[in-house]
């Protein structure tokens, strides 16, 4: 996993609450065998009109937001389906960080597995960022994980909370399977003390 330390980038404001993962990546793109290549399908049904024509009204298609790498969003971002294709699409499109007042649990967790930093800020601070992003063309923010700050060029400085373990993993880009395998003795002990079995006692249907 790519570590996340500090990122400066163009901000795109997506002013919708409860954005679900069906919108982030619709179901027709879940049939691939890879983790890459989903960026072109991000927000597909909002981004494109009939015949794959870009929808000029959708914020990501506006020229001033081309190349954005920080997604400013509203409450309960990423609700619904657990599909990790959603953060894969967010990352593949070019976003490194999301800023929102809240996230759905599974999506939030999935971001950390993919080197995306989901920053949580209070509603009023997110409102302020929405104001600034609308006002100033080319509005950029710097998200610094180490100091847990979001800053802009005109002196704005917000601090955010993040769990220390998640922070450490993201700063170092750790593969958590590798981390867990260091606990092999504990896992084996647990299996000896509490053997989990899924025995079959009766017949299954057969043709």
């Amino acid at each position, binding site marked *: 996993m790519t570590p996340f330390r500090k990122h400066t980038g163009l901000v795109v404001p997506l*002013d*919708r*609450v*409860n954005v*679900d993962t*069906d*919108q982030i990546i*619709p*179901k*027709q793109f*879940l*049939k*691939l*065998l*890879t*983790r890459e290549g989903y960026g072109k399908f991000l927000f597909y*049904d909002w981004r494109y009109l009939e015949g794959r024509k870009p929808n000029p009204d959708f914020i990501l298609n506006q020229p001033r937001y081309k190349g954005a790498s920080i997604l400013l969003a*509203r*409450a*309960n971002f990423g*609700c*619904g*389906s*657990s*599909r*990790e294709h959603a*953060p894969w699409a967010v990352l593949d499109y070019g976003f490194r960080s999301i800023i929102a007042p*809240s996230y*759905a*649990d*599974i999506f939030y*967790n*999935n971001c950390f*597995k*993919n080197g995306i930093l989901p920053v949580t800020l209070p509603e009023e601070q997110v409102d302020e960022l929405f104001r600034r992003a609308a006002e100033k063309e080319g509005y950029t923010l710097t998200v610094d994980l180490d100091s847990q700050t979001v800053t802009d060029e005109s002196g704005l400085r917000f601090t955010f909370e993040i*769990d*220390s*373990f998640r922070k450490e993993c993201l700063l170092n880009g750790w593969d*958590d*399977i590798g981390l*867990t*395998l260091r*606990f092999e003795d*504990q*896992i084996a002990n*647990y*299996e000896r003390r*509490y053997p*989990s*079995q*899924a*025995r*079959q*006692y*009766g*017949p*299954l*249907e*057969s*043709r």
Partner: protein
Amino acid sequence: MPPLNMYDKIWASHVVAEEPGRPALIYIDRHLIHEITSPQAFAGLRSAGRKVRRPDLTFAVMDHSVPTKNRNLPLVDQVAAAQFEALERNCREAGILLFNMHDPNQGIVHIIGPDLGITQPGLTIVCGDSHTSTHGAFGALAFGIGTAEVEHVLATQCLWQFRSKTLLILLNGRRRRGVTAKDLILATIGKIGVGGATGHVIEYAGEAIRDLSMEGRMTVCNMSIEAGGRAGMVAPDDTTFAYLEGRPFVPRGKEFQEAVERWKAVASDPGAHFDDVVEIDAAQIAPQVTWGTNPGMVADVTGAVPDPATFSDSEMRHSAERALQYMGLEPGTRIQDISIDRVFIGSCTNARLEDLRLAASVLDGRKVAKTVKQALVVPGSERIKAQAEAEGLDRIFKAAGFEWRDAGCSMCIGMNDDVLPSGERCASTSNRNFEGRQGKGGRTHLVSPMMAAAAAIEGHFVDIRQWNVDHAE
């Protein structure tokens, strides 16, 4: 020792390793996998040279994109076919039991787990699917995970987990006739909101929950995720034990009796603490119909589409305006004046035998309205399909004008050919009315199986309480 709630107990008995200030490593008793969220996990294992640690605790099924008819013909969707082949190969190599689309035990992952007795009280159960919360109906801790975590469980049979907060939802009183588990959960989500349980594991209790069958409890727990809940649970009781007895993966005889004693101890202790409590009077709940683009946008069948202008919160107003535009609805329209184009009875929310019986009890001797273009019933598993056929339910559905299909996720997610066309309106027993969920531009109204069946007959929503139907409850 202070009284513990069910979540605390299951958590405590599954901690493998724990250090202060860190998530705990917890052991996973059952891992369910399907074709959509597992191929990348197996590819990850392969590239790192890792093996599946407990293939014996892992169960696989094809459900999301399987066709629901003509399964013996070659697959047209070659992209889906490659995923099915990958699942076959991955399970064969790892020694995982797979129910492929031709297996008589095949079905939706959250239907077959309980139906085969793989799901049991006190267990930790995960699956790369958000509706894994369904299994909590048995007093298991069951939750959806992403593909990175699927890979992690395959490799280690464990997960790093932060402790969730707990939310007790008490559904007091008795539900009225014609009001089902689906209405209870839709009304609950309408009350607490689609983010109302975020960060929490829900325990459902109260008279209206105790009165539900296992099928009904599964419907309730299934939609916990639609309120943002990490998981949803119901304490195991005699209803649970009676459901489990005799199923293929459930112990028998003396072993069963011993298991029941263990399972009884899983329930929350009297006086156990919860971080939050919500109380709802089930007797006041009417049949529910969603009008918007998330499950919290819901109204009583006797009500009307709300006017967003009356919403005090600006984000909610904005979001309701967008929803009405997408749904092609005007504020103030009576729910019962909304006409429908299609009906879908199915999904991990409402495709169990009881759901089919309830829908059939409404349809018996009646015909689907001429204005309805398609009425589809997709049993949750091939076993359920066979049981329904043994009871003659298929004949009732077919006589009414429904198509009787093979088991799968079908039009809940529209990953196979069962897609809701753009601009069309569907009365659906599924769990999500998100934009495009059943098909791009499709308009979904979530309802119970009886309400879906009645809407099929009248061509618009009707209050099932006005109908004199026998019900199988």
